[in-house]
């Protein structure tokens, strides 16, 4: 794990604060590198094999936010549908609230995902605010919305990294899917998550963990995920019966 040129910038993202996140995004936008393949190379591959009832332990990470590599320059609908298998009915009926870079999305078929975008997905929500923020809300006039119109942007990078958050009812429905495909988590977020786990759950995860394909004793796991030479954790969680 040798930190590359991007190490400091990526590590900055792991600091708390809106500014650090914006910094990350601005880094992504200003990057002139033709390839994104090296961007997340200072990562530690971590895998778990767990029965389905072990999956919810990872949901706090999905609320906090994670990164996926995907084809970008396409609509939100295509991004979630073609690449992650979310059907149009599911998007219409369950994913009632979508934010792209903090703004409400009304038509996911006409809203573009770009490299460095920040996407958040939620079910329908209570309260006036919940109604206002909902996709296609009759009260959409009470808030701002993301620009619409493009379904695809020719010439945009084909592959990029998108920051994702999943909330509430969608956690148990979409969480296993993204965890199985694999996600990137800032190492400090993963360390904080690991340290906040209740003792019995951590013990269970310690038994199921594979770091670079190998099982490790608890103290070595702790040392590794606490190592500042690692910027990101590449996390995959497989669920057997």
């Amino acid at each position, binding site marked *: 794990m040798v930190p590359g040129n991007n190490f400091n910038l990526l590590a900055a993202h792991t600091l*708390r*604060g*809106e500014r650090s996140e*914006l910094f990350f995004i601005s880094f992504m936008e200003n990057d002139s590198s033709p390839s994104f393949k090296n961007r997340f190379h200072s990562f530690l591959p971590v895998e778990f094999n767990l029965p389905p009832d072990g999956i*919810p332990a990872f*949901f*706090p990470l999905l*609320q*906090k936010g994670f990164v996926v590599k995907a084809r970008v320059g396409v609509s939100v609908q295509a991004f979630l549908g073609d690449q992650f298998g979310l059907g149009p009915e599911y998007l219409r009926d*369950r994913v*009632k*609230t979508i*934010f792209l870079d*903090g*703004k*409400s999305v009304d038509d996911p078929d006409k809203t573009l995902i770009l490299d460095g975008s920040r996407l*958040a997905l*939620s*079910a*329908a*929500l*209570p*309260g*006036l*605010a*919940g*109604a*206002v*923020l909902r996709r296609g809300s*009759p*009260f*959409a*006039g*009470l*808030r*701002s919305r993301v620009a619409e119109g493009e379904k695809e942007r020719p010439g945009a990078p084909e592959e990029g990294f998108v920051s994702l*958050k999943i*909330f*509430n*009812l969608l*956690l148990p429905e979409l969480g296993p899917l993204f965890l199985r495909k694999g996600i990137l988590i800032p190492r400090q977020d993963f360390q904080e998550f690991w340290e906040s786990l*209740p003792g019995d759950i951590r013990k269970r995860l310690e038994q199921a963990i594979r770091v670079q394909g190998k099982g490790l004793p608890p103290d070595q796991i702790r040392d590794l995920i606490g190592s500042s030479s690692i910027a990101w954790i590449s996390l995959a969680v497989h669920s057997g019966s």
Partner: protein
Amino acid sequence: MKILRINMGATGGPKVSDEPMGQYEGLGGRALTSAIVAKEVPPLCHPLGEDNKLVIAPGLLSGTPAAISGRISVGCKSPLTGGIKEANSGGQPSQVLAMLGYGAVVLEGKPKNDTLYKVFISKDGVKVTPDNSLRLLGNYALVEKMKKEYGEKVSCISIGQAGEMKMSAASIAFTDMELRPTRHAGRGGVGAVMGAKGVKVIVVSEAGTKARTPKNPEKFREANKIFAEGLKKHPVTGEGLPAYGTNVLTNVINEAGAYPTKNFMWGRFDTCQKISGETQAQTETSRGGLATHGCHSGCVIQCSGIFVDKDGHYVTKQPEYETVWALGGNCCIDDLDVIAQLDRLCDDIGLDTIEMGATIGVAMEAGLAKFGDGQASINLLKEVGKGSPIGRILGNGAAITGKVLGVERVPVVKGQALPAYDPRGIQGMGVTYATSTQGADHTAGYAVATNIMKVGGYLDPLKPEGQVELSRNLQIATAAIDATGMCLFIAFAVMDQPETFQALIDLLNAFYGLNLTADDVTALGKQILKTERDFNLRAGLTAKHDRLPDFFKKEALGPHNLTFMVKDEDLDKVFNW
């Protein structure tokens, strides 16, 4: 139904009288409290004086088998806003009072001395007794004492120390199904008015009561079935709220950049996921608490819960979104256990959690404590309960605290603190905050389909005029729902499912033998707002009070860097109908 009046200032001690509903026949909840206050309270009276009245009114369908119909309204002239006030609450008393045949309980006059009274209401009558042993008890200890005295088949309406000390942030507590004082008519200082009347607690006995009988039982049963099914099948009322409670909003409002953080300085709280509804529910269930629970009998949504500590001991009910925001994110506190302790303290002392969170935020900005310091927040609330000089200042709310401590960024409208949605992040919320008859209030303009309610068509939603129109329609619809005693959370099922809305109207028609239409419901909402606006005008509240504080227009809120942009002249159009 009848009205129970207790004149606390009568010669020779409190005098009790029952009277028919008379001119108030057909009104309930907010429609009734506002009608009585507007007609009987001199608008220029002192809110803590003998001329103010405290009106406690169950909703039109409370005490019936109608699903989720147990909300209760409390009305008076507010010591916080100086205008008319309706604060409403869940809990058991609404159902029991209605089953006892009371459309309203009105506390009038003012005792000649500082004797403290308890009121006992049962099917056998009403008894008002002096009891100074209750002085300065917190709500929890008070209810325990009442249980010993009257048994477990009662519910209580009470004030804590804040109400006795007549603080403007004082709430009135209503006991829940477990006979705990966890449900509050929080806003506007209604607890101070109860304190000024010298009433510490109203104990309501359910012994010998039975559900009110509809005029048309068959139609009522059928409508109730459709109504309850509508609530259960909707994803918000049937899934999201039961699973995560109202705190499900934390992550989303934060993502929208509308989560007021550090006394409204920022629009996002970096560690909000630590206090989100998702985390809260997981914490509760993993410790042996409850993430799904009703606040009153007959609730089919079950958006509440039971918060327990790490050892599984009860701390408080599941704190709601606005509470978690006020005492959490607004003060940069991201510890659910601290927030639960603060919520418990507010319930015990009898304080509005929104007002106190905003107040502590202002105090933190003034340097009284550091942002993020949970223990300091706990200490400040305890000062309020003790009635120390600083506690007295804090207990009178954010506006007073800001003035005393010299803070410019004070998030209030008409003296009442803004709730958990920054109007720069969601501009339309600001229209309702500014123009509501109640002061800044997130429930004043709630989500009921304007097209279904037929209270106005769409204008261009991107223009301020569109926001004004929407806010007006929502305020009308909310006022109407507040009159029914229905929980406002029915709004979602009603909004999305026309048959559920029709079932609500059918419930009213079947119960009272009426032929109401959607237009009649709209007319009721308008009438309530007209009555309240008229009272406020006579109390001296004019267009210049329908404004957000200046800093919302001057300080841009990140991450979207927006100020509040709706013009004053557009705000003045909200009540032009």
